[in-house]
Structures are given as structure tokens and as C-alpha cells.
């Protein structure tokens, strides 16, 4: 049965094996920075195919998976980090698009509970073993063997126990290294883009935020496309570079002078750069062409109020008629009620 020597040997062997394994895993994660294809493959394997059962997009032939793979490659070319790319998909598909549950929050329990279960199981086994081994010495024992284990059974069991506890600790530690490594690797090897915002984050103004570089190349390719200039202007707007935004909006309007969104956004820039008269004129011409554009009415009313133009009340009331469910409506109502008394 288990003797002290072989227990110690077992412990040593387990320790060595696990150290090597952990080291190997660590090297696999933190060795040379992964290539684009390796990054792409790692990301494919972490994203769920939306129409399959528990399959990643890595191997799925479903058309949506093929499209998702090509989107991943485009985002890598854009210079996004692995974390940003996964966040981009979570923004559009929800957190269930990730194949491994996130490390934070309630879902962290999925990682922790099995580990806790292993620790408890080992601890229980160790306690049980010690109890079984503790010799029951009674007065008047007639020389029957205290238990079924040979000479010095307790220390043999102790070595094995220690080996198993060490094994589970190292397994947990190694697993932790893998998890940490998986979330860290590829995150450091971002491209030249210095974006700090979450990629694809839905900003309050409305649209996901493609890389500025991609938008710039879009307008270079098709300088006659008003929509491309508008998108570029929006991106600058989101980065609070109002001069660049205005420039892009004006270019859009050069191409298409009655473009509704471009006029509205340019008017908003004018408001924010203290040019209320120009903003008002632009909004009025917009509303001549498209009188039901609620947001233009809202902006006009706001500017009028800023300028102490008494027409602001009628304007804002018109906004409420046009779009009573607009998110700004309660605020506008409060504004109107506040003065009416």
C-alpha cells in the first residue's frame, strides 16, 4: 500500500508535471505576439454562431457565420483590439454571442463554482482520510490491527493528500493563468489606431462608431457621396472636433444641399459654437422643406429660448405635437409648464 517514500515520490511527480504544464500554457499565451490569422482564429473560436447550437463561428458554414468572420477580419484590419472586437459583437448580439461566459459579475460563478467544488471535494476527502486513519485505541485492545493500513499509514496518506491538494491548487492556478492569458493576449497588440472609446459603442447621437480611418478612406474613394461625408462629420462630432465636423457636413451639403440630416447636424454644430443666427436660418430652411422634422423643431425652439425670443414656447409646443414620445418630451413639457404659471 502507500508508503511514505512512494507518497513523496507521487507528490514530487505531480508537482513537476503540473509546473511544466502551467509553464507550457503560460508560454503558449504570452510568447510571441500572435499573428493576424492567429488573432482572428482565436476570436472566431470565442464567438457563438447565432443560428447553430453551441458552435463557434470558426467552423460553421452558416452564411451569417461567414459574414461574421469577414467582419472580424475587417475590424482587425481597422486596428481594433481583441477586447474591442468582442465588445463590438456584444453591442449587436448581446452577451450571449460570447462562447465563454464573462469573468465579471454573476456569470463569474460559472468559473468559480467548479473550482470551489474541487477544493471542497479534496478537502472533504482529506478530512475523511484522516478520520479513517486515526487509530481507534481502546483500553483492552486485544492486539487486533488498529486498521487495515500497514506500518506508518498516517504519513503515507498525508503525502498523498498533500499531493492531491497541491495538484488541485496548481490546476486552479494553471487554469487561472490560461484565463488571464486568453483575455490579455492580443489585447496588447492593437494597431496604430489610438481609439480609447469602446469600438462600435452606440453613442447617444445614434450610430455605431466605425474607425475614423475607415470613414476617411470612404470619402476618399467616393468624394461625391454626401452620406459618406455625413458619416465622417458624425465621427468628428463624436470626438468633439466641431471644426472638422462642420467641414465634413458642409461638404455633404455642397453635394446635396437639401440633405436633411446634414443640415440638422450642421445647425447643431452652429448652436454649440455660438452662432445662433446662422443655426436659426438653417433650421428654418430645413423646416420649409420638411416641416415635420421634430428634432429640427426642438433645436429651433431651444435656440429661440436661448436668445429670449418669445416664439420659443409655440415652437416647443409644436415639437410636442410632432413627437410626444420623443425622449426629450418630458423635459420640454416641464420647461413649458414651468413658465406658464
Amino acid at each position, binding site marked *: 500500500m502507500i508508503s511514505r517514500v512512494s507518497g513523496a515520490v507521487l507528490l514530487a511527480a505531480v508537482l513537476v508535471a503540473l509546473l511544466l504544464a502551467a509553464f507550457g500554457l503560460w508560454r503558449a499565451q504570452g510568447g510571441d505576439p500572435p499573428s493576424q490569422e492567429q488573432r482572428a482564429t482565436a476570436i472566431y473560436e470565442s464567438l457563438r454562431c*447565432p443560428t447553430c447550437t453551441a458552435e463557434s463561428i470558426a467552423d460553421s458554414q452558416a452564411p451569417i457565420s461567414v459574414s461574421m468572420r*469577414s467582419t472580424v477580419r475587417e475590424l482587425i484590419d481597422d486596428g481594433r483590439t481583441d477586447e474591442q472586437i468582442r465588445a463590438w459583437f456584444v453591442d449587436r448580439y448581446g452577451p450571449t454571442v460570447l462562447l465563454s461566459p464573462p469573468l465579471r459579475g454573476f*456569470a463569474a*460563478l460559472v468559473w468559480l*463554482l467548479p473550482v470551489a467544488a474541487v477544493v471542497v471535494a479534496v478537502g472533504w476527502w482529506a478530512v475523511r482520510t484522516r478520520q479513517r486513519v486515526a487509530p481507534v485505541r481502546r483500553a483492552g485492545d486485544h492486539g487486533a490491527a488498529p486498521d487495515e493500513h500497514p506500518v506508518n499509514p498516517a504519513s503515507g496518506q498525508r503525502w498523498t493528500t498533500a499531493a492531491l491538494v497541491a495538484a488541485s491548487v496548481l490546476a486552479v492556478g494553471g487554469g487561472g493563468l490560461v484565463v488571464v492569458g486568453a483575455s490579455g493576449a492580443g489585447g496588447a497588440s492593437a494597431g496604430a489606431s489610438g481609439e480609447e472609446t469602446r469600438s462600435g459603442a452606440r453613442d447617444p447621437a445614434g450610430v455605431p462608431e466605425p474607425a475614423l480611418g475607415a470613414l476617411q478612406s470612404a470619402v476618399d474613394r467616393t468624394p461625391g457621396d454626401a452620406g459618406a461625408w455625413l458619416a465622417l462629420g458624425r465621427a468628428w462630432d463624436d470626438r468633439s472636433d466641431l471644426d472638422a465636423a462642420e467641414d465634413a457636413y458642409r461638404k455633404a451639403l455642397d453635394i446635396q444641399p437639401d440633405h*436633411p440630416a446634414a443640415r440638422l447636424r450642421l445647425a447643431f454644430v452652429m448652436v454649440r459654437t455660438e452662432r445662433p443666427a446662422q443655426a436659426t436660418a438653417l433650421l428654418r430652411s430645413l423646416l420649409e422643406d420638411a416641416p415635420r422634422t421634430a428634432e429640427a423643431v426642438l433645436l429651433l425652439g431651444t435656440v429661440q429660448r436661448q436668445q429670449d425670443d418669445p416664439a420659443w414656447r409655440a415652437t416647443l409646443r409644436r415639437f410636442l405635437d410632432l413627437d410626444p414620445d420623443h425622449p426629450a418630451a418630458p423635459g420640454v413639457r416641464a420647461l413649458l409648464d414651468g413658465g406658464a404659471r
Partner: protein
Amino acid sequence: MTAVRARRRRGVAVHLLGLVLVAGLLLVLDQALEQSSSAVDGRVEAAPAPPLRGEGLFGDVHDLEDLRGTVVLVNVWASWCAPCREELPLLVRTAERHDDLELVGLNSNDRPDAARRFLAAVDATPMANVSDPDGRQAVEWGARGLPETFVVDRRGMVVARRSGEVTPAWLSSVVLPLVAP
């Protein structure tokens, strides 16, 4: 005897702990499964609509932005999608019947000639479409499969979606209430 009882109590305690852990794990899994139920059908938390802009199937150009101010049905379809064949005529007719309702198709992962033939077969050639041969715009919208329909309100927010074929019942209960009479 006390030793035995102590041992038994400890054993029970550990068993209980094990049960608690298992129960916890099942709870977490249940949560995860609930979240991953894929088919969404009906109102969703309003979120800004992604851009939808591009060339159609006949050299025309469309931009969802231009339709701001009306309710828009964005329908993701392809010629190889059988349920799309059933629902497209219904969608086209419904949009025609209401001034305040527009239909824009997103033809994803499809070949333009097959798509054009498909439209002719279901009598929907005049329909406004954006061509998306590599399916990337569909991914931008978070489409999980085909057909999928998104409802964009006047402010440009996605307020409802449906995975799978749309039915008259779905249209009347989810879409038409948003549309001006």
C-alpha cells in the same frame, strides 16, 4: 460515540455544501440559457438603428436616414431563404397600404442576379433594397438568421424585431400601432 456523531455531522455538512454548490451552478446555467434563447419576437429596448446605406439591386441607392420621420420595416432576406418567399409579398402590400410605413430590404449573402429573379417571382421588383453580398450589414444589425425583420420608428430607433417569417398577426399587433392611421 461522540466521535462517530461528529464525523456524521461533518459528513452531512459537506454534503450540504456540495448540494449548495451544485444548486448555485444550476442557477447560473439557467440564467445563461434564458438569456441565450435566440428567437426575439416583438418589442425590444429601443436602441439607435445602425446605418443602412448602399446600392440596391438595380443601380438605385438607398439610405435609411432619408426615411427618418416614417416607420420603417427593415427586412433581411435572400433568394435562398424559403420563408422569405412567403413573407415578402405580405410586407410589400402592407407598406403600400400605409403612407407612414416604408419597407427597405437588406439582401444579404446573396447573388444579385438570383435576388432579382426572386423579386420578379414574388412580384416585388419595385421594392427598395440595399445589396449586402458579404452579409456584413446584416451583422451590423445583429441579424441572427434569415428572414429577420426590424422595426425602426420615426426617430430612427429600433423598437421591435422578429426572427422568422412575419405574419399578419405580428404586423397588426406590433407594427401597425406605431403607424399613423
